């Protein structure tokens, strides 16, 4: 059995989605204790999931452990998606464009 160090199982914050991202204590109260600024954000911050909440993730900033709102940051967590085999068919079949809006993922329909 190979025991991996915690870092190996974690991921990184690679970008901030908002101009400023609040840093919180990771306790139950989530007290705000600082901010990250998008303008000065460089590189990647080591991150990990937070037990019992997927709304926050834990990040390591200058050696300190903080929590950030998960929706406010971009990470390098791998999200897999299958190669679409129907795209061509939908393209061919979508003949009456009128009266339906572009939807969630209509990329290859046009």
């Amino acid at each position, binding site marked *: 059995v190979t025991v991996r160090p915690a870092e190996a199982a974690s991921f990184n914050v690679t970008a901030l989605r908002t101009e400023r991202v609040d840093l919180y204590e990771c306790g139950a109260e989530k007290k705000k204790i600082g901010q990250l600024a998008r303008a000065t954000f460089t590189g990647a911050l080591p991150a990990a999931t937070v037990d019992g909440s997927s709304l926050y993730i834990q990040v390591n900033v200058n050696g300190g452990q903080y929590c950030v709102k998960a929706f406010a940051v971009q990470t390098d967590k791998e999200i897999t*998606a299958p190669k*679409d085999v129907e795209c061509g068919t*939908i393209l061919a079949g979508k003949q*009456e*464009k009128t009266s339906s*809006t572009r939807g969630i993922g209509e990329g*290859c329909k046009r």
Partner: protein
Amino acid sequence: MKPRALWVGLLFAFNGCASGGGEGATAGWASKVPWIGEKSGEATMLAGVKPGPYEPSSLAVGEEKDLARHRGEALGFVRAPVLEQHLAELRASLVQASRKTGVPGRVVILASASYDAFSTPDGNVYVSMGLVSALESDDEVAAVVAHELSHVLLKHHTSDVLADMEKRGQALYELGLDAKTQFTGTQAGKGDTRNLLAIQAATEATDKVMLPAWGRGQERDADRLGVDLLVESGHSAPAMISMLEKLQAWETANAQAEQDFWERMKQASQRNLNETVGVLYQKVTQSTSDAHPKTAERMEDTARYLERHYGNRDLAEPKADAWTSAKSRPEVAQVLQNYKQAFAARRLLEEGKAQDAYTAARTAATGRTANDAYPNWILSRSAIAVGRQNEAIDALRRAVGSAEPVAVVYEDLILVNEREGRVPVALDWADRASQVFAGAPRWTPHKIRLLRKTGRIIEANTLALNCSVSTPDLKRQCQEANQTPAGQTRR
């Protein structure tokens, strides 16, 4: 020169609306769109939706007719009552959160492996099986439905009127030009050709450039109102972003199709346009291509919106249980698994692995999907590929008899009969398809071609004329079909 001035004027007027967040959309129909742009950043999108009875869209054709038409456009619907009930309940909670009453429509699952969802003026929300399978929580499913429902509530479908009007205008101008040429016995003049080119340019630009630009504003607003609906209905609003992350992953995996589209656009613009309008068009195309809707931007906008309006609220945690439980019920799990097999069979068939495709398709057309159209259509195709003709015919028969018909089955039947010289039978299948799919226009080119082959030229001409004006998207196909060599009249 008037048409050019008019169309170019339109082109820039609508470009302004799109890039300006819709604040300039004050004329005529556009003023009915309850658009809230960047300038009203303090209010939520939901605050702009007036509570009370929903006013039906003028573009609505009727819920059932809309369903029949869309059934004919893709690969059919998947019937999974437990999932459909679950989706209906999610939708109901979102409608309630909107404070609108009497919002029509329902959520339908499309037999497609792609990540796709769209809505129609009738309020119907179509979600592909690929997306349904990929979503991991009730909240992500609700996010998809909330986004599409938002298009309905915000009457975004109205923008399609613009494209449709332009195409009809172009079709009429071309028809008028044809009539003039035939009547006078002369070639179209330089002025006529220039006007036509300008109209074509504006129509193409609206369709491919301006509407996507307008669409970006729509997508953003639908994301934002979707977030409001998620919050108000007690769902986890950040699911809108996790859902978009999955979409982004799918886009990355399927980037080639997108690149192919823009390559075709580039070639078309080089081929068709060589005047001032063309140069402008190419520039706009290029800039829009560079700023093509990016899911990452939508995620950023949604994150900012969430933070701005709900940053101080305790947002709900995502709940996976109900969705997981619905998907893992035996009757649902089997449907999901069988369609997965059917999609795999299709891919294998395209890769030339006929025997593997046949094996997968055999599994796909069993149990609860034994009589479903899509798995049987794939089984039919793969059975032919491995030389099992009788099995193929049986499968095709089941596909035709399915409660949820699939358009491609009818197309196969039309083409096979036509190829084997049974043109009247092929025409009969085209007529049947047109009925089954509520007169969906995709059957019109088939009918025109087959009518000509059976010598019914006047009927073919009438259909072609009607097609050019009423369904400009199909104009070229209808005109090509109407070039089919005329056959002998059969009575």
